């Protein structure tokens, strides 16, 4: 039977970001809209179509993933950091909840923020770029959920580990930004010279963006030699499981949160 306290903690996490929607939902929408307008509309016409699809449509899946990753990560990491900082994490630690339940509640809370952001960005994109269509809704949702889940779980890990807000922020700057940018948000990895193309294959975010591109704009990327939709899906699930496992292990052991 599911522990009702676990559901309450998920509810708390979701209520928190919904109450702060101006800080938790709006920024992702605004930055995505700006990217679409600046890169897609203004520069896109000069860049021309990518792999047979208009540049503006081509970047939407990547922009969505970039925002989803950021939002999911930020939600759980900052929620835990706040709880640590103000010590009310103790209220949660002394409750009859297992480490697994606590870590999953924080992860699922962040997952919801990622998915809601992703859906809103896709809707906004449709509004700004009418030609953009989603070929497989089910698969798109699966990517939104798994990728949000994976990076929300990573947020839990970093949230527990971090001693300061700066550490949480620097993870975004030093890890997510470069991996997203180099993961082919704005171009096809096929455009990179040999060695860089190979290096890109080791970037998990590349596979997640590719998977999302496959789910949304469909057949185009399938033609590309470096994109296996199956591998994208496997990797998204694999990271979801690995990060979830580490996060709950940390809570079970009380790593850095219990003395």
């Amino acid at each position: 039977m599911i522990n009702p306290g676990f559901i309450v903690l998920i509810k708390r996490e979701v209520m928190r970001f919904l109450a702060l929607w101006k800080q938790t939902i709006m920024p992702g929408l605004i930055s995505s809209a700006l990217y679409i307008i600046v890169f897609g509309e203004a520069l896109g016409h000069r860049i021309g179509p990518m792999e047979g699809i208009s540049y503006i449509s081509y970047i939407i899946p990547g922009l969505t993933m970039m925002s989803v990753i950021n939002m999911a990560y930020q939600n759980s990491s900052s929620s835990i950091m706040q709880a640590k900082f103000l010590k009310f994490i103790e209220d949660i630690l002394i409750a009859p909840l297992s480490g697994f339940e606590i870590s999953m509640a924080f992860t699922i809370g962040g997952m919801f923020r990622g998915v809601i952001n992703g859906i809103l960005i896709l809707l906004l994109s449709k509004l700004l770029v009418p030609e953009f269509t989603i070929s497989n809704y089910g698969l798109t949702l699966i990517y939104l959920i798994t990728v949000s889940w994976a990076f929300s779980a990573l947020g839990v890990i970093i949230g527990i580990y971090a001693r300061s807000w700066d550490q949480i922020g620097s993870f975004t700057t030093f890890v997510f930004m470069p991996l997203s940018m180099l993961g082919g948000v704005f171009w096809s990895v096929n455009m990179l010279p040999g060695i860089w193309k190979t290096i890109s294959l080791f970037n998990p975010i590349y596979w997640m963006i590719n998977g999302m591109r496959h789910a949304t704009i469909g057949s185009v990327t399938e033609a590309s030699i470096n994109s296996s939709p199956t591998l994208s899906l496997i990797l998204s699930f694999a990271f979801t499981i690995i990060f979830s496992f580490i996060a709950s292990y940390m809570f079970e052991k009380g790593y850095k949160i219990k003395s």
Partner: protein
Amino acid sequence: MTEISVKIRKLRKIYDGKVEALKGINLDIPKGSFFGLLGPNGAGKTTAIGIMTGLVNITSGSVEVMGHDVIKDYKKSRRLIGLSPQELNFDVFFPIKDVLALNAGYYGLSNKDAYERADIMLEKFGLTEKAKNTARELSGGMKRRVQIAKALVHDPEVLILDEPTAGVDIELRHMLWDYLKEINNNGKTIILTTHYIEEAEALCNEVAIINDGEIIKQDAPANLINMLGNNKIMVRINTKNKSPDLSPFDYKVEDNLVEFSTKDPSRDLPKIISKLNENSIDILEINTSKSSLEEVFVKLTNNKL
């Protein structure tokens, strides 16, 4: 035999493999008692509480709450405990009513029950008007009340209060005392740590004194005072009889003042009076001075508070 609510056996805690905060303590806290855990700073009180509640990992030994092991059976043991930590800690994202309801929810109460309990707590602690405020917007005294309300919202059998009246004004302190006595009278076990020994003396029917990771004494405050305290009966007499023999009492004479040391002044006073009468000594004035728990505490721990 009295039922035990918290049973601690050979409990040890070593931090980082170096500092031994608890050196294998044994402690039985009777069900329904108002139990004081007293000790100087760094004695191990908060560590012991942390282990009972799951905030501190155990090194060795065991703790049971109403028969449930705090490690193996933690979901059951934690449901029975409410903790009000020394340091105020609030979820500042929500109004205090929601914070209370969320806390009740973590313990498995349904949404409806949780809000009902939250309302009861707000009323009990005179916070109903502040229900929609966040903890940040409240005064220090109100925050402390919310802190204790949080610990009580899921109606625990064992309430643990770590320094509940630190920084609280006298009026609120007495209000809290009355309320805590009421809860205790309703059968709940209360475990209290405090720096105000007079608080323990006023509230607790049993205290354990902990020092340097060890329990050095456990008894009712009155017994501790009788056993270890130094109570005095001072009798001013007329000075005709210079050297009265007042054995077997422990006494000393200085001018016309006889000072008796006794463990139990109420028992010894009548005997002393008759002894003086036997020696035909006229009594001019009698004064008694009773030791406080604080003196006992200082004596036992060699520590100032």
